[in-house]
């Protein structure tokens, strides 16, 4: 049984139980054990890095140390956490001087970064530890006729030299995973462009402009829903959709679901167990397509 230390981050336990539920239930069903380690903290996302890069590296390294001590690789759900932790892991493994510098700081907390473990994104675990074949076999409710606009967000893929999740210009991992569920992955303009999620709170106007562009492009491609990987993208396009409607008077009505939620539905998990009420944009359209087609 493959085990991972689950890194939840902050946003998911605070606001997105739907992501956490769908992730836990699907991974358990697919035979991956998730271990909840004590004393984890924030991953040190961009706001912390903006204040002090060294501090954010130290915080991220601290969390990796916890996993190293438990002899487990880390699994992240949030792409922001993935970027922060995986980037730190790669940087410290490659630069002895930097590693020494950070370890000096970590020693104050009684920790030492070894570089012995990996940080993986939820998607990577599905590909590497489950595999598309086994995944396909585990699908009990194929999402046929569902048109999904795959949205990677930024931090799952970039900076690609450090994260190495997939080809940053022509990624395929998410599309393959969507198609394995029986759904159709639709192409749309500027697929890899940022949704503006990180600008929410500091520059709302710009954030909404970018969210609007994303919604418009996915809409034009006739997508039934957008599949996200990151809680920030989710918020930008879900709650953000309402704000876009209010500001620009444009109604897109596109449900936004995390890939893990689509996966949960395809694996036959009862929608009532997935806290789907978290979605501000109602996902009835998606549920109808999936369930009404099955009768």
């Amino acid at each position, binding site marked *: 049984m493959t085990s991972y230390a689950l890194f939840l981050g902050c946003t998911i336990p605070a606001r997105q139980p739907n992501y956490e539920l769908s992730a836990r239930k699907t991974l358990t069903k697919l035979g991956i054990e998730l271990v909840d380690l*004590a004393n984890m903290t924030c991953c040190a996302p961009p706001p912390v890095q903006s204040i*002090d890069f060294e501090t954010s590296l130290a915080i991220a390294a601290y969390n990796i140390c916890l996993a190293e001590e438990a002899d487990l690789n880390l699994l992240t759900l949030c792409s922001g956490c993935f970027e922060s932790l995986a980037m730190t892991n790669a940087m410290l493994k490659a630069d002895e001087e930097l590693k020494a510098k950070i370890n000096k700081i970590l020693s104050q907390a009684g920790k030492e970064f070894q570089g012995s473990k990996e940080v993986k994104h939820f998607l990577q675990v599905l590909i590497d530890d489950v595999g598309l074949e086994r995944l396909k076999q585990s699908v009990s409710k194929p999402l046929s006729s569902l048109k999904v606009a795959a949205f990677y967000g930024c931090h799952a893929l970039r900076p690609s030299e450090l994260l190495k999740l997939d080809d940053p210009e022509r990624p395929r991992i998410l599309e393959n995973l969507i198609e394995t569920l029986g759904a159709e992955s639709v192409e749309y303009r500027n697929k890899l462009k940022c949704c503006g999620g990180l600008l929410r709170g500091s520059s709302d106007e710009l954030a909404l402009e970018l969210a609007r562009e994303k919604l418009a492009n996915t809409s034009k491609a006739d997508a039934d829903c957008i599949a996200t990987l990151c809680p920030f993208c989710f918020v930008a396009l879900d709650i953000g959709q309402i704000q876009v409607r209010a500001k620009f008077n444009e109604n897109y009505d596109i449900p936004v679901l995390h890939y893990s939620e689509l996966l949960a539905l395809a694996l036959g998990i009862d929608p009532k167990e997935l806290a789907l009420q978290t979605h501000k944009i109602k996902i009835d359209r998606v549920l109808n397509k999936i369930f009404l087609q099955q009768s």
Partner: protein
Amino acid sequence: MEQVKEKKATNSAFSSLVTDRLGGETITLCYQCGTCASSCPVAKITPDFNPREVIKLSLLGAEEEVLSGDSIWLCCSCYNCQERCPQKIEIADVIYALRNIAFEKGYIPNIYYQFASAIINDGRIVKVSKFAENKRPTLGLPPLQPTGVEPLRKILSATGFSKMQKKKEESS
């Protein structure tokens, strides 16, 4: 052909400040091709931010303008510029480095004080409310593990982060 040795800018103290920072080391390689600008989603929708211009201003030594302005806070960290830069400049990291310097000098948007306080007080940037925590069993989620606030505070103390935060509070 001989190796070209990287030289630190000797005619601008500010660009040396940036190259000495973690993340800012590559700024002087820039030859202003503009690939970053056309890769930037924010630059496309507002004239207030253009990564090429931020770098140019920094290289010319316009310290006050770059650090005190709003511009550097508009970057959405999508890393597209860094992916495409033909000189392999770590542009997004350079922006972070500029923010770090700005923070030290006291130029910083208010919301970041809140982020910093949250980290120090709760060990998290977004606090998990008691409400959310209590709801977990009903939703079928295991209890939340405690947050490592104490070890985090020790780290923040070691990097001087807490002191920085205090400095801002004193001055504001």
